[in-house]
C-alpha cells in the first residue's frame, strides 16, 4: 500500500501546497496593490509560508488508511497545524486591507475577498476529517470531494480569476472591459461553489451518519445521500456558466485589443 500513501501525499502536496501557495502568493502580491500600502506583517507572511510548506505537506493520508497508524496520525497533525498557517494568511490580509473600501468596489477584489473564508473552511474541514473521530464519520463519504471543490473552486480558482480580471484589462491596454459580466461571473462562481461544496459536504455528513447505523442496510444508507446530488449538479452548472462568461468577456477583450492594435498600425502607415 505504499503506492496509496505516496498517491495521497502527492495529491495533497499538489492541491494544497503547490496550488494553494500559488494562490496565497498571488493574494500577497495583489493585496498591498489594492490597499496602496505595504503588507501588514512580513513576519506573519513568512510564518504562514513556513507552516504551509513544513506542515501542510504532511496532510492528506486519511485516518482509515490500512497502514501503520503513525502515518495517518502524523498527517492529521500536519492538517491541524496548517490551520494556523491559514489563519495567519487571513489575519495578515485583513489587516492589510482594513478600512480600505476601494477593494470592495473593484470587481477583482471581490474574488479575492470571498476566497479567504473558503480557504479557512477548507483548512478546518480538512483538519476535522483527518482526526480519527471525524474520519470515522466522514471518510469514504462525499465530504472528501466537497473539500477538494472548496479548495479548487472556492480558493484557487477564485484567486486566479481575480488575478485574470485584474491583469487582463491592463495587459491589453484596452478600456473596453465590461464589469457587468465579471460581476455575473463572480456571483455564479460564488453561488456555484457554495452549492457544490456545501451540498456535497451535507451529503457526506448524512452518508456518514447513515453508514454508522449497522441496522440500516448498506443500500439504503448509500442511496439516500444521492438525492442531494441535484443541488451539487446545479452548483457545477453555475460554475460552468460563470466560466462561459469569462470566455466571452476575454474573447471580447481580445477582439477589441486586436482592433485597437490594427487601427494604430494602419494609422502609422498612413502617416508615413
Amino acid at each position, binding site marked *: *500500500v*505504499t*503506492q*496509496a*500513501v*505516496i498517491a*495521497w*501525499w502527492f495529491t495533497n*502536496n499538489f492541491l494544497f501546497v503547490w496550488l494553494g501557495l500559488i494562490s496565497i502568493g498571488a493574494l500577497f502580491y495583489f493585496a498591498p496593490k489594492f490597499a496602496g500600502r505595504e503588507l501588514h506583517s512580513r513576519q506573519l507572511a513568512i510564518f504562514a509560508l*513556513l507552516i504551509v*510548506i*513544513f506542515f501542510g*505537506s*504532511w496532510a*492528506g*493520508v*486519511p485516518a*482509515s*488508511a*490500512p*497502514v*501503520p497508524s503513525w*502515518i495517518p496520525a*502524523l*498527517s492529521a497533525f500536519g492538517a491541524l497545524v496548517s490551520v494556523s498557517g491559514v489563519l495567519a494568511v487571513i489575519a495578515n490580509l485583513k489587516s492589510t486591507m482594513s478600512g480600505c473600501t476601494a477593494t470592495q468596489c473593484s470587481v477583482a477584489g471581490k474574488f479575492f475577498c470571498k476566497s479567504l473564508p473558503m480557504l479557512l473552511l477548507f483548512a478546518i474541514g480538512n483538519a476535522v476529517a483527518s482526526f480519527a473521530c471525524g474520519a*470515522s464519520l466522514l*471518510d*469514504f*463519504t*462525499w465530504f*472528501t*470531494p466537497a473539500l477538494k471543490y472548496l479548495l479548487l473552486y472556492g480558493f484557487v480558482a477564485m484567486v486566479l480569476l481575480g488575478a485574470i480580471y485584474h491583469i487582463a484589462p491592463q495587459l491589453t491596454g484596452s478600456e473596453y472591459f465590461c464589469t457587468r459580466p465579471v460581476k455575473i461571473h463572480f456571483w455564479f462562481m460564488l453561488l456555484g461553489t457554495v452549492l457544490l461544496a456545501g451540498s456535497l459536504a451535507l451529503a457526506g455528513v448524512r*452518508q456518514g451518519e447513515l*453508514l*454508522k*447505523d*449497522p441496522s440500516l442496510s*448498506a*443500500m*439504503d444508507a*448509500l*442511496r439516500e445521500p*444521492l438525492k442531494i446530488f441535484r443541488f451539487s449538479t446545479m452548483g457545477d452548472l453555475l460554475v460552468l456558466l460563470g466560466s462561459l462568461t469569462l470566455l466571452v468577456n476575454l474573447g471580447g477583450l481580445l477582439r477589441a485589443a486586436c482592433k485597437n492594435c490594427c487601427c494604430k498600425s494602419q494609422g502609422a502607415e498612413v502617416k508615413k
Partner: protein
Amino acid sequence: VNRAPLIFLTALVAFALSFGAFVLAPQIQIGRQTITKVTGGSEDYPKARAGQAAQGAIVYRANGCAACHSQTVRQGGIRIELWLKEAGTNTAQVIAAAKKLNEKFDATCLGNLPQLIVSGLEIPRKAEEAQMLFDKLGAVADVHFVPTGVDIERGWGLRHSVAADYLFDSPVLLGSQRTGPDLANIAARSPGADWQLLHLYNPRSVVTNSVMPQYKFLFTTRKIVFAPTSDALKLPEKFAAPAGYEVVPTDDARALVAYLQSLRATAPLFEAPMAAAAK
C-alpha cells in the same frame, strides 16, 4: 541581500522532511513486506492471485470500479473475551472463579461448553491472568479478540484491513468513496460467481434498489444455435434476453468475477488479531 540560497534551502528541507516521512519511511516499513504466516497456523498470507483473478484486477481498474467501491474495512476497537473451553473436575471452584469475573455467569451452562465467561475486559493482561487462574484450577479458558466497529457489524469484514492484505495489488485500488458497498471482503459474503455475473449484467436483477450502472458490455447476447450453452446467464424473466437469444459472459466478465471472488481478508494476523467465530 540575495536570499535565493536561503529560500532554496528552506524549500529543500521542507520537501526532504515531507518526503522522508510520507514516502521513504512507509517504504522502509511496509514497502519491504513479504508473505507472512497466519496467526496460530502454518498457512501463508496473502496468497498471490491466480491468473484469471489477476486479469480481473485489470478489468476492475479499467472500468473504474474503485471510484465507487472502497476496499478498506475500518475497525472501531477490539473486545476482549474470555471463554471457558473445558471445566475440568474442580467445577465448584471454576464456577466461583467465573462468578468473580462475571456475577451473572450461569453455573448451569457448564454442560454446554465453550461458554462465554466475561466480555469487554479492558486489557489483554487481565484476560491472560484469568486464563492462568483457570489453568491452575484444571480448567481451560480461551482469550478471544473480537474486532468491533460499524463496518464489521455490517458484515463488510471480520477485522480491519492492514497493509499485508494488498501485498499482491499493483496498483493498489483502495478507493476513497463508498457509493457502493465495501469490497475488501466481498468473496467471503458473496452468494457465488453466478450471482456476481447476474449482478454485473444488471444489478437490479438481483438487488432491486441498486444504484450501480449496468455492465452489459461485458456480456454478449447471441442467437441460440442448437441448445442454450451451459454458461448462459439464468436471468429473471424481466431482464431476460429476447426469445431465441442468450446472454453469455465475455472473458473480461469472467475475469472480473474471478477477481471479486478472490477479495477475501479473513486471516487473523499479528497486526490484526481476531478470534475464530465462537462455536
